[in-house]
């Protein structure tokens, strides 16, 4: 078995005394697709920032493989309308070779002739693809995607997920992505991690994806992930203990 790209052990992070993440164990193996889900404020973005090295953990260990090269796709690009920049130029900031940029655009399904459009004029779906193109230009072995299908309609979401799956196969990279949608999770995902300040549960997305009724409802590439919660959360997101099935250790920060 090859070495993990990223390994987090017992990682905790808090902001101004408020614990956002506690006792996080997470391993990303090469080629693996991991989806992080969880409600707002669950710490998904914080966890992504820890992996990206934008934040330092308060406690616990963060191991990054020495050959790790991350292609990051941020949640949103807020570019001031006064900045005149085309899609081509945006990509050229990462890779000066024009042919490679054109190839990347082709890979994400954007017509390379669209490269001279102002970045601000792209539609939601095109923008996500453009960000993906920039991320793969770095030839990453890990793609980190923060809510890649946000602002994209359901049909577009399905094709974006299909694209991410294809890119993983072609680039042979691992994928760590965040989704706020608890029900629509990419079916190619190897592991779903449900986060709510700590890891609630994790596992394969349910076999339900093969059920014809669900395929009809959600399409072939998205599968609902059903939860196997063994505890409840109150409105603040704190854990309400429900019996002994709840397996926490000391690092959880709650009883």
């Amino acid at each position: 078995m090859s070495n993990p790209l990223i390994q987090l052990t017992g990682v905790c992070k808090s902001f101004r005394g408020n614990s956002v993440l506690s006792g996080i164990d997470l391993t990303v193996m090469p080629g693996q697709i991991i989806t992080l889900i969880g409600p707002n404020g669950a710490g998904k973005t914080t966890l992504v920032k820890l992996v990206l090295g934008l934040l330092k953990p308060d406690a616990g260990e963060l191991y990054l493989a020495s050959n790790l090269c991350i292609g990051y796709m941020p949640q949103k690009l807020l570019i001031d309308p006064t900045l005149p920049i085309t899609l081509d130029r945006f990509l050229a900031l990462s890779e000066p070779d024009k042919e490679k940029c054109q190839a990347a655009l082709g890979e994400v399904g954007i017509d390379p002739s669209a490269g001279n459009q102002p970045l601000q004029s792209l539609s939601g779906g095109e923008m996500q693809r453009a960000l993906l193109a920039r991320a793969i230009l770095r030839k990453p072995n890990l793609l980190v995607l923060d809510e890649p299908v946000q602002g994209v309609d359901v049909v577009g979401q399905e094709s974006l997920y299909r694209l991410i799956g294809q890119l993983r196969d072609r680039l042979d990279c691992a994928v760590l992505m965040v989704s706020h949608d608890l029900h629509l999770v990419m079916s190619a995902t190897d592991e779903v991690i449900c986060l709510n300040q700590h890891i609630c549960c994790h596992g394969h997305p349910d076999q339900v994806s093969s059920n014809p009724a669900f395929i009809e409802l959600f399409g072939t590439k998205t599968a609902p992930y059903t939860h196997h919660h063994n505890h409840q959360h109150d409105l603040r997101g704190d854990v309400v203990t429900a019996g002994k099935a709840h397996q926490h250790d000391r690092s959880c920060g709650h009883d």
Partner: protein
Amino acid sequence: MIDVLLYALLAGLGVAAVTGPLGAFIVWRRMAYFGDTLAHSSLLGVALALLLSVNLTLSVVVICLLLALLLVMLQQQQTLASDTLLGILSHSSLAIGLVAMALMPDVRVDLMSLLFGDLLTVTPRDVITIYLIGTIAIGLIIWLWKPLLTMTIHEELARVEGVPVTAVRTALMLIIALEIAIAMKVVGVLLITALLVIPAATARRFANTPEKMAIYASLAGSLAVLIGLSASWFADTPAGPSIVLSAAILFALSLLKRE
């Protein structure tokens, strides 16, 4: 007499060359208020220079840079909204500067020239200082152009792609401080931001790349200096405000161009 005009023109054009690209970044990164705050604090730098009898330009650059770093630190606290914080520091630094100067009895300062510039008293020495500092500022901007642009688009993406964001941001503040130090003589501390923002906003409608916008902004600024200085010379209007007014008229005219 004509050499007064020549020095004024050279000084104005030298400052406008830097305000173009720097103003573009200030507009793209929405730092207008930030620039304003630093410009106001430069008055404190002047007071300090008079008090300690040190070099005025150096004192202004150092004070602006210190305040910029203080601002960044305070902004990371996130207890006050950024614009509230800037509002507090902008006007209190201006007030400290004014009070400090009033407390120095031996020093008579022409406050109007500090606040609104005094282009027609520029000396050859001033012109040399402006071009020396301006060259450093433009050199820094060109050298850091790509990381600055990458960071302006998305700071975290830039960081993940290996841009030393903190260092580059500090360098940008140093450039702003340098520009303030040289623009003070031309338009005064109260109008520096106008010279940064208005030409850049004018250039936006004609540019389709960031580089073109920066260059066009320099040209628009230079044209404003020419027109404003002419008005000042022939109609005896104050030079600094005349230049800013010219820039504003050029901007208004640019609105006539269809996108």
